[in-house]
């Protein structure tokens, strides 16, 4: 999923303080799962904003709503009947959702309430870690299901660097060395020989090196 964290309240207030009526819009997808921008968080943020603005002697009317998916034009269309009287939209989706709104509603200011972080998964309650950089050329089949692009600080392709010590990365003792994890996994799978293969320099074009990426499925595209 795409993970996100809410921006500091002060930053959000800076965005919305010129307006009297805004739509605060959550998303039921990834940001709900990572407890950053779902229905519950929309309610909490609306209350927080109201309180903070009241304290400073101003007020704002906040209409709360949560879409099934903000990145999907089909669901964004739901907003058309309700958007007219709103002066601005504060989105609690990831950056994809924010841009979907900005593209659809060209005359409405759209602001992000979240900082989109990374593609990852849940480690335990309240903890998420990065697992995929979307490089467009998945190597997990060669690296024991552990990604050196997402999990190695240097995105190395041919084993650990000199900064790997006792299975930890040089950037922090809290960060495991991805290549140690890969080695352990290949060993467990009886595929140690794969570690000795020299991987060629990566073609980064599929990872965005050639500009913004697009997928066109001829069988689905209209």
């Amino acid at each position, binding site marked *: 999923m795409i993970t996100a964290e809410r921006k500091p309240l002060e930053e959000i207030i800076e965005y919305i303080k010129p307006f009297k009526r805004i739509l605060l819009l959550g998303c039921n997808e990834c940001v709900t799962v990572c407890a950053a921008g779902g229905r519950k968080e929309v309610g909490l943020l609306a209350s927080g904003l109201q309180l903070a603005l009241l304290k400073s002697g101003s007020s704002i009317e906040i209409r709360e709503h949560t879409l099934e998916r903000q990145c999907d034009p089909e669901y964004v269309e739901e907003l058309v009947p309700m958007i007219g009287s709103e002066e601005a939209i504060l989105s609690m989706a990831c950056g994809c959702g924010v841009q979907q709104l900005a593209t659809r509603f060209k005359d409405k200011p759209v602001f992000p309430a979240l900082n989109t972080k990374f593609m990852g998964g849940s480690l335990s309650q309240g903890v998420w870690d990065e697992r995929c950089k979307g490089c467009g050329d998945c190597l997990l089949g060669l690296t024991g299901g552990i990604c050196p692009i997402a999990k190695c600080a240097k995105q*190395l392709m041919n084993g*650990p660097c*000199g*900064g790997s010590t006792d299975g930890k990365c040089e950037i*922090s003792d809290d960060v495991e060395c991805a290549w140690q994890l890969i080695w352990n996994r290949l060993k467990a799978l009886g595929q140690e020989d794969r570690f000795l293969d020299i991987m060629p*320099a990566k073609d980064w074009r599929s990872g965005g090196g050639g500009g913004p990426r697009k997928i066109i499925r001829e069988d689905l595209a209209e």
Partner: protein
Amino acid sequence: MSFQKRLSANEFVVLAEMHTPKGVNISRLVNDARRMKGRIDAIVVPDMDNGIMRMSALAGGVLMQQQGVEAIIHVYCRDRNRMALQGDMLAAYVLGVQNLLVTHSEDIEQSDHRDARQVYDLDEVELVQVIATLNQGKDMGGFELDGVPEFTAGCTIAPYSDEKGLAGELEAAAKKIEAGAGYIITPPVFDLDSFAGFMEKAKELNAPIIPTVFLLKSLAIAQYIARSEPGANISEDLIKRIRKSSDRELEGIKIAGETVAALKDLSQGVMLQTLGWEHKLPEILDMAGL
């Protein structure tokens, strides 16, 4: 005889590391290099070593060549993509620097520019491969070069803390040798017995091995390394020797000189690392009888 020829002829090589300045005052670097002319085979010029932004090694290497001392410059992957790396290496070659040392680079988080974006388009193994490709007259894109360089490329073994770490480093070095590295620089040697054990294991790499000899400038530095890098094997006896000495600076120089002398029988060279005390290099060589 050039560094490359001495390596090929299995001659003992003496290298010394000299850093470029953080700025444009090159007088100390140039003076240090001149002082060592004729006494060492090459000067190794790190490039933003330990993540400290400095004048690039390319310029440092050219300055060394201008003083009549052969240069070996560091190349690494943190700050340049494949185009910049290839371009700079070709530039180095035409300016007289033909020796390269592919090194590990400190993570940007540990640098003095922590807000910078790191590159890592390639890794060390791939960079060694690229140098071999350039030597064959092609660039990474497969295009022919107009004028083919003849680089001598080496690689490093990073400090390791235990046998498992050493095994990993030897595996990594084997890959770099397979990719085209022609010599290996090892971490500092403080214990000759451990180094002999290392050499026994490293024999299978079948490449010239050049250990680092680090000048212990003070008791505090020796104690710090002993505490923080168990794999360095700084013994309690060595610490005692420095502590009891009436002239600790001189003791450090003696230890370095003795280590160099002993390594003549164990390795194919030494790389002296004096971290700002390059003016002490002649004394170390005197002590070593070189």
